[in-house]
């Protein structure tokens, strides 16, 4: 087990390296520099700026410096938010995004698998159909459509909840963004859970459990739940990536000061280091979360050999 985990961690390095390299060279290939403004700067000032941020060095040297700094966990200074390092910006933005995204993924997992199980146990009944219809709605209405519609209904018309802002993470301010972020994944997970539960319930071990005369809830909770959850668990990797991406647009809509918003602002301002920092940071997060998911999967599934 330990060896498998280690091997997975080692396997992540090439991915990381490619991620960083791609981010770096794409950034540098882009037309327009971070200090392009309406008025042209005096050549001396330009030269000084370039020197300060090492933009005057050959590309390969910049790349080397970038990797070297990253290896020490240093994302460098932000080009636009003067006096801030990218690390500091990530440190202020990430807790907010983590709260949103973390809550969303946990809620999606529990609600989704619960709904899926219920639908599977009541297959082809009104309950099943209504859960699946809701799931289809959740999949078909993108979160950036859902969010404004919810604002329109709950904030503008009914005035129950604030339309946006973070307010230091007051509970009321988090409700709408979290629903918008969670709903599509509740939908995906409940569909996955339903079909895998239906399959598991038909399998031999379950027939045996029933033949032993175990009560139904024991059959479901003790015997069927674990194998049925496997596809859901392997979906958690892509789901996390999706929720992180989704939070970019949700933070934008609700005006939440999270990392996703820094990313969009940074991208529009050509803040090289900030954008690269966020991409690499999220990349690392996703890659390692995928490894954890794989390891958990291997732990739960007796069929996986490692």
């Amino acid at each position, binding site marked *: 087990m330990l060896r498998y985990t280690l091997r997975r961690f080692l396997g992540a390095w090439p991915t990381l390296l490619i991620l960083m390299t791609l*981010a770096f060279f794409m950034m540098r290939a882009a037309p327009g520099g971070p200090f392009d403004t309406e008025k042209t700067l005096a050549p001396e000032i330009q030269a000084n700026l370039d020197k300060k941020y090492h933009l005057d060095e050959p590309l390969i040297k910049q790349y080397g410096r970038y990797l070297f700094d990253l290896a020490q966990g240093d994302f460098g200074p932000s080009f636009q938010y003067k006096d801030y390092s990218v690390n500091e910006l990530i440190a202020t933005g990430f807790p907010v995004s983590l709260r949103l995204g973390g809550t969303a993924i946990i809620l999606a997992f529990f609600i989704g698998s619960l709904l899926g199980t219920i639908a599977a146990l009541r297959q082809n009944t009104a309950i099943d159909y209504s859960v699946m219809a809701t799931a289809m709605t959740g999949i078909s209405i993108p979160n950036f459509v859902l969010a404004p519609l919810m604002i329109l209904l709950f904030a503008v018309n009914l005035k129950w909840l604030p339309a946006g802002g973070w307010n230091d993470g007051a509970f009321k301010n988090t409700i709408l963004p979290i629903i918008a972020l969670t709903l599509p994944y509740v939908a995906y997970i409940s569909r996955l859970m339903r079909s895998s539960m239906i399959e598991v319930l038909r399998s031999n071990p379950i027939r045996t459990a029933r033949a032993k005369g175990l009560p139904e809830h024991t059959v479901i909770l003790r015997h069927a739940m674990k194998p049925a959850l496997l596809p859901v668990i392997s979906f958690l990797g892509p789901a996390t990536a999706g929720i992180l*991406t989704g939070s970019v647009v949700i933070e934008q809509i609700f005006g939440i000061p999270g990392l996703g918003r820094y990313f969009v602002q940074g991208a529009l301002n050509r803040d090289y280091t900030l954008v690269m920092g966020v991409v690499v940071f999220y990349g690392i997060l996703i890659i390692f979360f995928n490894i954890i998911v794989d390891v958990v999967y291997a732990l739960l599934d007796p069929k996986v050999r490692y």
Partner: protein
Amino acid sequence: MTTQDINALQSLNNKTEIKGRSLWSDAMQRLMRNKAAITSLVILGIITIMVIIAPVFSPFEFDAIDWNLISTPPSLANGHIFGTDAIGRDLFVRTLYGGRMSLMIGVIATLVSLIIGISYGATAGYIGGKTDAIMMRIVDILYAMPFMFFVILLMVFFGRNIYLIFIAIGAINWLDMARIVRGQTLSLKRKEFVEAAVACGVSTPRIILRHIVPNLLGIVVVYITLTIPQVILVESFLSFLGLGVQEPATSWGALVNEGAQDMEIAPWALLFPAVFLATTLFCFNFIGDGLRDALDPKDR
């Protein structure tokens, strides 16, 4: 035997003659029984036709600005049945033009990802061995990338170019296809007809193109109907962030974005494009589900 008997026998014979049912006619029959899928197909057909012949429906140009009618609500009297947007353009025509763009991007980008995915997956699966291992390892590595972020970067840096959108979206969507196709190819290449082709001395690229790829069609069709909505979603996502198609051209995502900006005074500008976008995604998902059930009966 009288002629009557012979006739009777013949008609009996005609009745008992069993018509062969191919995989496709079988699947077609199952699909026809799926009401949700068929309804979706019809609705999608109507939307597609509306979108293609959009200008026929309305006397207004999609980029014609009428400063006298800014953000007017839907009304039959002045002909703006979906109302007008913040600079007085007719929303009905814009919604249809936006749909044209969204659907076009959906179809073309899906084709791009299809071509890359099928050729990559079929090659890896058919050749096998080390080549397969290396090719799939590359897919694994790419799989872990936060691609959406790269697409956003791409749009920001290289301008909002529609061809770039096709390529970018196609380029992130081929990974799934490659995996599916490879798996399918692995089982196909052990089949007798491939062996026969090898024995006849057919070249490898030709076997892949003529014998493997056509047999992948079923799974590819399902995949297409599930990818198109994904692509439309990605494009809408980009357009929503203001990184997709450029004014005055529009797409559903861009319209939802514009509508969301002044939804408090003009909710119709948000509602109509949102309904069209959601309905289209709904239909594609239902058709995809229906096709999967029809082509792969073991899953039901």
